[in-house]
């Protein structure tokens, strides 16, 4: 008991030191919004002035994510891919287990819920597709758009049960196909730059048509990258949910 209390006191002391250090660091931070803030450096100016010329899109955040830093975004897509592999490996829901009689989470979907879901899901899907496709000319992009699509699909699964949505079979592997297909689309789009004589994922500089400013078909391959990210995120979320939610063999539910 003595040792435990010593350990507890050490933890408290370490936390107090950490809190003191963080408080001092917070006080030393430059005031947000001031004109000579260190964030207002040549990088920000370069992006603000260069993005309309380099990418032909008005959404600067999206242009950085899908053009200048497209290789980082590819890394994020790979992280999603690896997370699926990890969850699938740990939970190991093979075909055999999924074939076991399952009681969907949602067998008890009542009238209000199913009516509301019927009403909401189409709009959410359309809005998710809009956010994904228009990501480079309005706020949004592949990540929120994909999450919206996934939310609609998961809501459908929760309400109507697995296989309750027409065209989505009980133990379908469509999310896996979409998952891999989106990553392949990303890589294919990225290699356009290589064929054009530039670096991997280089966009307008290798002659991809820039399109008309402010329309969907602008910014070179940025819309394609946005669609790839959206599909990827949606497929990852749906697959994660389905893997987590699949009943396992010993389940008594």
């Amino acid at each position, binding site marked *: 008991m003595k040792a435990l209390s010593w350990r507890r006191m050490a933890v408290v002391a370490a936390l107090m030191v950490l809190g003191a250090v963080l408080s001092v660091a917070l006080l030393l931070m430059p005031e947000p919004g001031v004109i000579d803030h260190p964030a207002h450096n040549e990088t920000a100016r370069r992006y603000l002035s260069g993005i309309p010329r380099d990418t032909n899109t008005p959404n600067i955040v999206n242009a950085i994510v899908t053009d200048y830093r497209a290789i980082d975004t590819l890394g994020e897509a790979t992280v999603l891919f690896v997370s699926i592999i990890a969850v699938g490996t740990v939970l190991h829901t093979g075909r055999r287990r999924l074939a076991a009689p399952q009681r969907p989470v949602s067998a008890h979907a009542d009238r209000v819920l199913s009516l509301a879901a019927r009403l909401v899901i189409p709009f959410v899907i359309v809005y998710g597709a809009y956010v994904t496709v228009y990501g480079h000319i309005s*706020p949004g992009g592949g*990540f*929120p758009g994909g999450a919206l699509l996934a939310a609609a699909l*998961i809501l459908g699964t929760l309400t109507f049960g697995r296989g309750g949505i027409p065209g989505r079979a009980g133990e379908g592997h469509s999310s896996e196909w979409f998952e891999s297909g989106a990553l392949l689309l990303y890589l294919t789009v990225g290699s356009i730059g290589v064929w054009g004589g530039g670096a991997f994922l280089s966009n307008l500089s290798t002659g991809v048509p820039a399109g008309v400013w402010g329309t969907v078909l602008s910014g070179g391959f940025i819309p394609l990258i946005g669609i790839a990210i959206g599909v990827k995120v949606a497929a990852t*979320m749906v697959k994660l949910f389905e893997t987590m939610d699949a009943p396992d063999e010993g389940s008594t539910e």
Partner: protein
Amino acid sequence: MIPIVSAGLVVFLVVCAAAIAFVRSAIAAIVLFAAYSAVMSVLWLLLNAPDVAMTEAAIGVGVNTVLFVAVVRRVGGTL
């Protein structure tokens, strides 16, 4: 007006974060976390970051909540 709203929302965030640490029930913590994300996304909007606000609302409120509930069900925790 906007600074008062922002201050109120920030206070709510702090209270929410503390409550997440202290509540006993898993479902209460998950709902509080969703509320935290929703308020945070409003704050992102007030900070002129609509992209981040949309992502926070879609992923923080929607997908995170669903995944947390699925995990708690999966590990046999009490909701």
